[in-house]
């Protein structure tokens, strides 16, 4: 059982072991050049969010560095409770809604996808490959075509003729009615990515556990889950991002119910009826990316070398 209890501390690699490709300095320089190019457009967004409306359309954003006319007005317009735009109580209730929508909509699909991916990778059965490819192919189904059938499922159930297959679920307009579609839509990609990772876990490890008489449930909990942490962390980041930035699903499945809209839907309205308030758009775009960035930073440390050190594929 020693394999299952993981009493051996994972051996972490030396920071520079085997990293001589291109040389470290060349790598650093190349990465930084790309990083700077990648940041220029974002910088434009960031600086614009501090500029006055009249300046935005008169001169390029880089002029901020030559003639600094900074204003925090755009940000205070978003956070203030009275003046702005359909948000009488400030943005905090919507921030909470966003969290309430996003956290379960990340946990549910990742848990179910990890389970399914393990099953498809290691508990083979006749047709399991076909199921896997079918799931892969479902990625291409555009969310837009699923909106009406799903709403029908929630409001009226599923019937074939007079036979009721699924009764009306009555979850449209509730948080559950947003979590479920997000979970459904996330599954194909999540299963696909996690399957790739989980199927590459060392065969010896699995076989040894099987010989030890461990059940699939035990293998899943004791081996697969801990070893999949980097992949799960990576997918958590993306799923968090997609749900946090989602407009469509929340918009459709809140069904006009007051008080459950996420932040993003409220901020989309800030642009004004005629979409002419760039200064507010840029600042709100920055407010919405803050939280995903924090998630990224905090999960980044799970991408570490060496969880599999000592075991050979």
């Amino acid at each position, binding site marked *: 059982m020693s394999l299952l209890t993981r009493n051996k501390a994972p051996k972490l690699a030396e920071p520079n072991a085997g990293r001589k490709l291109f040389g470290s300095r060349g790598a650093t320089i190349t990465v930084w050049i790309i990083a700077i190019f990648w940041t220029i457009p974002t910088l434009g967004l960031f600086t614009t969010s501090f500029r*006055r*409306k*009249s300046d935005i*359309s*008169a001169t390029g954003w880089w002029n901020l560095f030559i003639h600094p006319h900074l204003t925090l007005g755009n940000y205070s317009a978003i956070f203030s409770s009275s*003046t*702005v*735009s*359909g948000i*009488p109580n400030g943005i905090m209730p919507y921030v909470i809604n966003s969290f309430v929508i996003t956290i379960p909509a990340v946990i549910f699909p990742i848990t179910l996808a990890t389970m399914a991916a393990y099953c498809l990778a290691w508990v083979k059965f006749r047709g399991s490959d076909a199921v896997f490819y079918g799931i892969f192919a479902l990625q291409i189904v555009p969310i837009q075509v699923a*909106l*009406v059938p*799903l*709403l*029908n499922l*929630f*409001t*009226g159930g599923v019937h074939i003729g007079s036979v009721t297959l699924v009764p009306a679920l009555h979850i*449209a*307009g*509730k948080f*559950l009615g947003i979590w479920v579609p997000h979970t459904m839509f996330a599954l194909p990609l999540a299963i696909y990515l996690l399957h790739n990772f989980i199927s590459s876990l060392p065969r010896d490890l699995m076989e040894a556990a099987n010989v030890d008489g461990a059940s699939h449930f035990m293998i899943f909990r004791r081996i697969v889950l801990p070893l999949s942490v980097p992949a799960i962390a990576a997918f958590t980041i993306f799923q968090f991002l997609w749900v946090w930035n989602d*407009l*469509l699903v929340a*918009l*459709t499945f809140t*069904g*006009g119910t*007051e008080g459950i809209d996420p932040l993003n*839907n409220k901020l*989309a*309205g*800030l*642009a*004004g*009826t*005629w*979409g*002419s*308030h760039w200064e507010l758009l840029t600042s709100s775009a920055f407010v919405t990316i803050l939280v995903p960035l924090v998630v990224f930073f905090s999960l980044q440390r799970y991408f570490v070398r060496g969880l599999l050190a000592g075991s050979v594929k």
Partner: protein
Amino acid sequence: MSISKKGLLAGVATATIALVATFVAPAAYAGTSAAACANVGSGYAVQKGKTVEVFTSVVGDELTRYAKASADFTACTGIKINWNGSDQFEAQLPVRVAGGTAPDLALVPQPGLIAQMVATGQAVPAPSAVVNNINRYWSKSWRNLGSVGGRFYAAPNSANLKSLVWYSPKQFAKYGYTVPTTWADMFTQSDKMAAAGQTAWCGGIGSGGATGWPSTDWLEEVVVREAGATVYNNWIAHKKGAYFSDAPIIHAMNTVWGWMGNSKYVGKVSTIATTSFQDAVTGIPSGGCMQLQQASFIAASLPKGSVVSPTGDAWVYYLPGINPAVTTPVEGGGEFYLAFNSNKATVEVQTFLSTPQWAVSRIKAAGSNGGWLSANSGVPAATYSNPLDALSAKYLSDSHSTFVFDASDAMPAAIGNGAEWTGFTDWFANGTPVKTVAAKIDAAWPSASN
């Protein structure tokens, strides 16, 4: 911000059963307020704790004004109105109606979409109280716009005047230009501007997925000015003799090309296709370009600090007529309230929204900002505190004017939101020949029933 321990415990306790129990806690309601009822009018049934959702494409501070304007109605009847705004309204409404989560009321900006929603069988005809208000306060053309197959469904909300030209009084004064009152004068003066090296007309039709729509307005203005309302309405209905490829429309398109497609007046024509319609107006106060044909709402896109007044940085004049046989041609747009059920609370709200009392309180909610006007004849002219609105209301309520509704909003979506937008964008971007553009749009016209 502090919270008592007891409250926290209670919160957690309620939270644990939250998944089982549904959370619809009706707000405690005190009672009807006599003062509020005085502003609303009489005859409404009190429906305490009821909420009616109005789904709309209006968002932002404009939406807040709707809530403000309906506060008295809620105080009087106990019916809360949930003004639910989304910039994805046009895409979302059909989804929600097909999915079984239709709103109580939808504020639809296109008559074409009303007809389509009626075709789903989910929309309900207007109740008799609304019909009475319509007959009493609105002209026949507005009544027709809210009717489908001879039945009246949707009462108008606001109206807007499109037949306006933006200019800068300060710039005009500086160069000695005057406000033209005839089509010919307008172009004589534009020639002067061109000769002086100025850009006589601003233009921008960029609008993301809706790119092209401002140019459809230009053509509509010219069609009604040259050919009159009958041809205009036949054009909307796609009747023979008024197809895009037929003489009157081709003629109008050539007129538009001599105006907004004329590099003498607009500079590089193709730039119009990539300039956003909001950016088009930013050159007005500075004289970067001198005139812009656009509806009154574009005032919101003027640079901050611009004074909108007859002597200020920006103001409007009425786009003059062309054919003397067509008296005071006016093109307008508007939205309509369409109901998806006949619940008592829905009917009460729908009725209230068709009254002059509603229009007056909505105009007051806008205050001096203005930007909201009604074609309801029960609204006293003095209600408008914003001079621009007062001017627009004058043209919209003038019984001698030739009023037509925005054609692209009334045509089938495949044309008004599709082939016409893309065709015109291509026209301005590449200078495609007028006949080719027209033929393409006609070819895209959908067959009667699908």
